[in-house]
């Protein structure tokens, strides 16, 4: 009887340790996914972005990155409390208006923010491009983002292209990456 109890306890201990190791592995893999995107871009590769589904900022629908296949996408992570985001917003709106007929979509992802603050921000700067809301900021780690603003570019084939811009961009840098995204073939 005592031997049986001992065996059960040993099995339970091994199970707990295995679960902890699996949890650690999952966490490390998730963090590595974001870092991997940057590394791949630097090597000149064109990785696929994480398959993410966002809630729209107005809370009335969903936005999937996969829905934009065939379009070039500027993926801008922002928050209403982020100062450089205030400078970027008008430039993003201008770019969206200029290139939308050529197949460009600007997608703003408001993260780690109050939804009401984000809505006020959108209204104040007259932003008309699609807006997603990720209050928890779950998407930030998937991309390997470390702050705000950060901007990625997706080609028409749904793969990342150009630079991952950490921090604010200037007009020239935005233009160059938008062009690279628009010039990718649809596959």
């Amino acid at each position, binding site marked *: 009887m005592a031997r049986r109890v001992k065996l059960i306890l040993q099995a339970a201990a091994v199970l707990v340790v295995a679960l902890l190791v699996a949890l650690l592995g999952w966490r490390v893999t998730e963090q590595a996914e974001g870092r991997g995107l940057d590394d791949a871009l630097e090597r000149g590769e064109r990785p696929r972005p994480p398959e993410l589904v966002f809630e729209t900022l107005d809370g009335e629908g969903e936005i999937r990155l996969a829905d934009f296949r065939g379009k070039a996408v500027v993926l801008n992570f922002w*928050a209403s*409390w*982020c*100062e450089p985001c205030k400078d970027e917003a008008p430039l993003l709106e201008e770019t969206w208006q200029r290139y939308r007929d050529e197949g460009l979509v600007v997608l703003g992802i408001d993260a*780690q*923010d*109050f*939804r009401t*603050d984000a809505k006020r921000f959108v209204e104040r700067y007259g932003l008309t491009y699609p807006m997603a809301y990720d*209050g*928890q*900021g*779950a998407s930030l780690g998937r991309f390997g983002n470390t*702050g705000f603003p950060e901007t990625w570019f997706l080609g028409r084939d749904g793969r990342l292209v150009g630079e991952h811009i950490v921090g604010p961009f200037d007009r020239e840098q935005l233009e160059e990456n938008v062009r690279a995204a628009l010039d990718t073939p649809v596959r």
Partner: protein
Amino acid sequence: MRIVLALAALLLALGAAACGGESDERPTLAELEKKYICPTCRTTLELSNAPIAERMRAFIRERIAAGDSEAEIEAALVSSFGEGVLAAPPKEGFNLLAWVLPLLGGALAVAVLAFALVRWSRARPQPQPADGAVSVNGRPELDSELERKLDDELARFE
């Protein structure tokens, strides 16, 4: 064994006290700052000067002034930032395990340790001399030759 049971009961009682009995009426900013985490810097609001932490403090101040209870403020913050905004997991549902398991683990560890110690002390074999002779202090008597040598050595120091 009674001591073990008493310790386990004490740990469980402490856990139960930690799990309930708090009032959420008339919260203050100082109290709430310790309970929520700044999503960008992952420290409690009281330790953070990040812009989002400032904004969250302002939000909490507004809600307190509007007469919201702690539960209402917490619900609003969780709705915006998810459960990750809580410095401690909620004491309900699956998250209750995070509170109960360490206490159960502690109680189990104490019980196992006590059980093992009791068994070990009882089962420890006492060395017995071959002829079964035992001295007055309960230890086996020395070999007569060895005892003679020891007496000789001691005599040299007297």
